[in-house]
């Protein structure tokens, strides 16, 4: 078999990460437009049974590579296995999530295959039987529509939280097959020695459905407590602008912006954030943007769907109370 669309799954601790369902769903849509089959490819350990459910999201076949050395992602092991599978079965298109894993794996695989890749795509189209990818550049200050030339397989990564996950069709079935590969320990040059989990329950910003974010207007680290309270009630993650991170109020991993994380939640509430161009670059594709700032001239109001020009220290706690009646239990 050859010429399929392959969606590469991402697993952790026996579960598929949300981006897996996004790329299988999007892979299905692309495959349909091209009249191709969609294979889901899973690398991991003790994940074969779970893999069957990828059929519900559109996979025609599920290829599972299981090995102790694939339990934790390393570029060496994953690239080696995928390279072997690709050489054997020659897909036309490979799609994976633009998570930290995908952004790390796709370039190495592409280089090994001597092809290009399109990173962090926000939309896919098909024109004249070719895959077209649309991706942000300059951290979203512009968008590039790109197409591959002399570059099979086309390797693309999809920005997390953007591709719509299909309604699972539990009547769909697909063959689950064991991948044929070999892995030599001498190939494995990077080794995971420890995994340190973040505070439990903390949602990663790049995957959060809702984000409450604070900037210079928060004035102190302690004041972020009011954002955390709002976040708790609506089920949001808490982010920060560069100003808040540079002031030492929030960790670097919370920074949203051109030199921080790029996020795409359904709801982004910016509190005391002026909306500098570099911050907007990091959250401009949020579906609904709310700005709370006492400065009516703050540039953030240009991007916001809803703006409140008032004291955030009064508005945010009031909002926390006001939303309680709407939040589902």
């Amino acid at each position: 078999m050859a010429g399929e669309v392959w969606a590469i799954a991402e697993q952790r601790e026996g579960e598929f990460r949300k981006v897996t369902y996004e790329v299988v769903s999007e892979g299905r849509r692309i495959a349909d437009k091209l009249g191709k089959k969609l294979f889901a490819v899973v690398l991991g350990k003790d994940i074969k049974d779970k893999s069957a459910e990828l059929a519900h999201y559109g996979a025609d076949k599920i290829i599972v590579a299981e090995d102790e050395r694939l339990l934790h992602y390393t570029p060496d092991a994953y690239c080696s296995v995928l390279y072997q599978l690709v050489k054997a079965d020659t897909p036309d298109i490979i799609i994976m999530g633009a998570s930290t894993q995908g952004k790390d794996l796709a370039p190495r695989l592409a280089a090994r295959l001597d092809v290009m890749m399109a990173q962090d795509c926000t939309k896919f189209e098909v024109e004249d039987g070719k895959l077209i990818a649309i991706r942000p550049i300059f951290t979203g200050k512009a968008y590039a529509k790109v197409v591959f030339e002399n570059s099979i397989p086309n390797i693309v990564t999809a920005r997390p939280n953007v591709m719509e996950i299909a309604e699972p069709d539990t009547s769909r079935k697909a063959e689950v097959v064991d991948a044929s590969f070999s892995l030599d320990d001498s190939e494995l040059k990077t080794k995971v020695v420890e995994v340190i989990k973040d505070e439990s329950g903390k949602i990663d910003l790049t995957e959060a459905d809702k984000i409450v974010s604070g900037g210079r207007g928060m004035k102190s680290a302690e004041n972020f407590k009011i954002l955390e309270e709002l976040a708790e009630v609506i089920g949001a993650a808490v982010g920060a602008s560069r100003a808040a991170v540079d002031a030492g109020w929030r960790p670097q991993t919370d920074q949203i912006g051109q030199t921080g994380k790029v996020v795409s939640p359904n709801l982004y509430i910016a509190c005391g954030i002026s909306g500098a161009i570099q911050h907007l670059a990091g959250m401009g594709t949020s579906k609904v943007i709310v700005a709370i700032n006492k400065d009516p001239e703050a540039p953030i109001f240009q991007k916001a769907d809803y703006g409140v020009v008032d004291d955030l220290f009064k508005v945010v706690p009031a909002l926390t109370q006001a939303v309680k009646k709407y939040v589902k239990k």
Partner: protein
Amino acid sequence: MNIIALVKQVPDTETIIKIAPDKKSIVTEGIKWIINPYDEFGIEEAIRTKEKFGGQVTVIGLGPQRVTEALRTALAMGADKAIHINDPALEGSDSLTVAKALAAVIKGMEYDIIFTGQRGIDDDMWMVNIALAELLGIPHISLAIKIEFVNDHKTIRVHRPVEGQTVVVEADLPVLVTCQKGLNEPRYASLPGIMKAKKKPLEVKKLSDLGLDASQVGEAASKLKVLELSPPPERKPGKIIEGETPEQKAEELARLLHEEAKVI
């Protein structure tokens, strides 16, 4: 220790990006060029590593004439020598090709560790660095926020943040590391540093030095073609929420988020 740091120039983050009339490139006139912010962490880490263990730092940059400025800044910060790959034939090359050009230079060098930024904030491709490691046949570790040398400096141990966790990874040298914000605070070039930099070696390499053919590089050879550039999607104009008190505005906002936006 022989240390390499890669340097790229990108438009300053304040730049308002304007799309050129051909819709396939951006207007470069008037752009202020800076060292890619993530590369600064790489240059800084390279210099600190030299300060700790001895050796020398070579910075390498690929691009037009203006890139010499970036290389001189890196030399002023404390790097020892610079290599500038400068050939008009390379303009418009895709990331894979840039990696090949860099590999052509680096494979002839002695090196223990290569530092790069996690990505260029212009094309956001996150590819040249990792592709380079692949082409050199060395391991890579990306998104480093903490680097330690262990096992008698033969191995590095790197902390890298991924979603929801920090993973600690080890690899034997030689290795390529991509640097994430939080790894270090890059130093400013001192005046004595700037003066010394003028005398430090800066070697220029042309296409012929790379063993690559003109047909293999540049826009024509690119495996990823730009069909069109466009500005970011327009957002519908928003509304400022009215109310007598902050509490009233908050109530109205909550109501709109629930009933109109349907996000709560």
